[in-house]
C-alpha cells in the first residue's frame, strides 16, 4: 500500500530561485494494483517516486509505504520497496550474481536464503548463462534483467518503477512490461511513471495525470474517458494539461 498526502518538494537553485518540483501530490495505491503517474518531462514524476523510495526527503506532506512513514521510518520503507528506473545503473565491475548478492545482503538476507532466491530468480529470468559475466560486458536487455533481479531479491511488497522503459528497445521494454504485470499478479503494490501513453493504457488500474508538480486528473482509463469524452489517452492528457495552464 502507498498513501501520499500533500507531498511537496522544493529545490533551491541559485539562478532560478525556489522550484516547487512537487506541489501537494496525494494519491493511494493498493496492493494488486498498478498506479500510473503520467506526465511530461519535468512534471514532477521522478521527484515524487524518489520521495516514496526515500531517496529524497519531502519538504512538506507525508507518505506511507507498506505502512511505514517515508521520513521517520525510511530504513523500513527501503526494506519493503523495490525501486527500478533508468537512472538506477549497475556496478559495471561486479558480475551479475555479485550485483544481486550485494543488494540481497544489504536487505539482510542470510547466505542460504540468498542463494535460494538468486537461483530461483536467475532461473525464472533466464540469467544463468551470464551470471558470472561482469555487468559492463552485458547487453542492455541483460542489464535490465539484472536490475529486475536486484529489485526482486528481497521480495518487496511495493514496487516503484520510474520510466523503466525509457530508451530501451522493443524487446527489452516488453520484458519490463511483462515483469510489471507479474508484480501485480503476485499481489504487489505497483507505482509506475511514464510519458508513454500506450504503456499506461496497457498496464495501469489507476492513472494520475501530473503537471507542474500536481495531479490534475485521476481515475481508471474508463473513468477518464467518460469524464473527458475522449477515447484516446493522449487527447485526454492534452485536454487536462492545457485546461490547467
Amino acid at each position, binding site marked *: 500500500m502507498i498513501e501520499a498526502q500533500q507531498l511537496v518538494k522544493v529545490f533551491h537553485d541559485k539562478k532560478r530561485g525556489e522550484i516547487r518540483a512537487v506541489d501537494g501530490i496525494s494519491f493511494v495505491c493498493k496492493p494488486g494494483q498498478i498506479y500510473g503517474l503520467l506526465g511530461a518531462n519535468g512534471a514532477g514524476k521522478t521527484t515524487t517516486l524518489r520521495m516514496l523510495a526515500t531517496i529524497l526527503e519531502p519538504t512538506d506532506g507525508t507518505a506511507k509505504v507498506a505502512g511505514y512513514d517515508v521520513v521517520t521510518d525510511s530504513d523500513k520503507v*527501503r526494506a519493503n520497496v523495490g525501486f527500478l528506473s533508468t537512472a538506477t*545503473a549497475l556496478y559495471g565491475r561486479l558480475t551479475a550474481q555479485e550485483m544481486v548478492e550485494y543488494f540481497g545482503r544489504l536487505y539482510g538476507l542470510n547466505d542460504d536464503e540468498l542463494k535460494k532466491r538468486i537461483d530461483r530468480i536467475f532461473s525464472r529470468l533466464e540469467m544463468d548463462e551470464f551470471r558470472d559475466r561482469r555487468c559492463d560486458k552485458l547487453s542492455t536487455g541483460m542489464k535490465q534483467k539484472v536490475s529486475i533481479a536486484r529489485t526482486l531479491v528481497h521480495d518487496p511488497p511495493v514496487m516503484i518503477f520510474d520510466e523503466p522503459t525509457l530508451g530501451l528497445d522493443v524487446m527489452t521494454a516488453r520484458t519490463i512490461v511483462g515483469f510489471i504485470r507479474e508484480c501485480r499478479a503476485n499481489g504487489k503494490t505497483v507505482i509506475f511513471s511514464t510519458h508513454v501513453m500506450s504503456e499506461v493504457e496497457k498496464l495501469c488500474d489507476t492513472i494520475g495525470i501530473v503537471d507542474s508538480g500536481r495531479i490534475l486528473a485521476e481515475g481508471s482509463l474508463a473513468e477518464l474517458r467518460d469524464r473527458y469524452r475522449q477515447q484516446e489517452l493522449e487527447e485526454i492528457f492534452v485536454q487536462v494539461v492545457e485546461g490547467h495552464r
Partner: protein
Amino acid sequence: MSLRNIGIVYRKELTDSLRDRRTLISMIVVPIVLMPLMSIGIGAISTMIIGKASQEVARVMILGGDDSPKLMAQLRTVKNTRIVPPHANYAELITNKEIRAAVEIPPGFDDALVLGQNATVKIYEYEGELRSQFAANRLQQFFRDLRDKTVQDRLEAQKLPANLIKPFDISKENVAPPEKVTGNLVGGLVPYFIILLSLTGAMYPAMDLTAGEKERGTIETILCSPVSRTHLVLGKFLMVLTASVCTAILSMLSMSGTFVFAKRAMSSMGPGKGEGFAQLSINPKAVAAVFLMVIPLAVLFSAALFAIALFAKSYKEAQSYISPLMIVVILPAIAAILPGVELNAKLALVPILNTSLVSKEIITGTYHWNYIFMIFASSTLYAAAALYVAVNLFKREDVLFRS
C-alpha cells in the same frame, strides 16, 4: 551502528576497486615499480652525467702569460684540458658554453715566482654549470699544486723543514651512529614520500566511489537499498583508507628494498667507491613508527578526499578539485625537509607539516614523546572532523543530486 552493513559495503567496494585499473596502478604499481625505478634511475642517470662531465676534455682559454713560457708549458700538460687561442670575449664564450673556463695570468708570472713576489691568478667560470666547474677545478688544482711545489722548493733552498708552514694537522671523525647520520641525510625524504603516496593512493578510489558513482548512475541504485547513509559512507571510506594505507605500506617496503639493494650494490663496488652510502643505515623500528604516525594522516586524507570528490558531479570535476590539493600537501611535506625547520609546540599542531617533522626526528632516532602525543592527537582530531564532514555531506540531497 551496524558493523555488518559497513562490512558488506566495504567488501563490495574492495572487490570493485581491485578490478579498477586506475586504482590498482596508483595503489600497487606506483609504489612497487615506479618508486624504485625513479630512485635508482635518477641515481644512475646523475652518476652517468657527472662521470661523463668529469671525463670531458675541456676547452680552456689562457689570457696573458706570453712572458711566462715555463708556466705556459706546464699548463699544456694539465689532463683533460685543451688550450684554445685567447680572445677578448672569453666571458661570453664561457656563458655560451663554447669554452668551459679561462685563466688570466698576470704579467711576469714566471719571474715573480723566482723573485718571490706575490701574483694573483684569476680563473673565470660559469657558476653552477657542471662542466665549467670541472674545468675550473682542474685549473685551480693545478695552481694549488704549483703553489705547494713552489713553497716546498723555497723551504728546501733555505734548508728549512716542511712542517715550518704546517705545524699541525686537523682531522675530522664522525661519532654519530649510522642511523643518525642517515636520518639527517634522508630523514626528511622518507616521510615525504610516504605522505605523498598515501595521498595519491587514496585519490582514485575516493573519486571512483563518489563522483564516479554519480557519473555511472549507481548512486541512486545504492541509495534505494536499506543501508543507512552513515554505514554507506563508512564502508566506502574504509576502502579509501585501505588504498591509502596499502600504498603507504607498499611504498615503505619498496623504498626499504631499494635502499638495501643500493647499499649492497655500493658495498660490492669495492674499496673507495660508494663507501659513504654503504655505511648508511635505517632502523626498521623507526620506519614502522613513522608508518604509525602517518595513519591518522591517511585517515585525514581519505576523509578529505572523499568529501571533496563527493561534492563533484563527475570524475573529471573531482580531478579538478583534487589536483590543487596535491600542492597543499606537498608544500608542508617539503618544508620539513628544509634545513633549520625544527619541531616545536606550534608546528606540532600544523597538519601534515607536524607528521613530516616528527617522522624526520623518529628516523634519526629522536623521540620527543610530548610532541608525538600532540601530533597523534591533533592529527586524529583533524581526521575525525574530516570524516564527520564527509558523513554529513553524504546526507545532503543538494550534494548527492547536484546538477
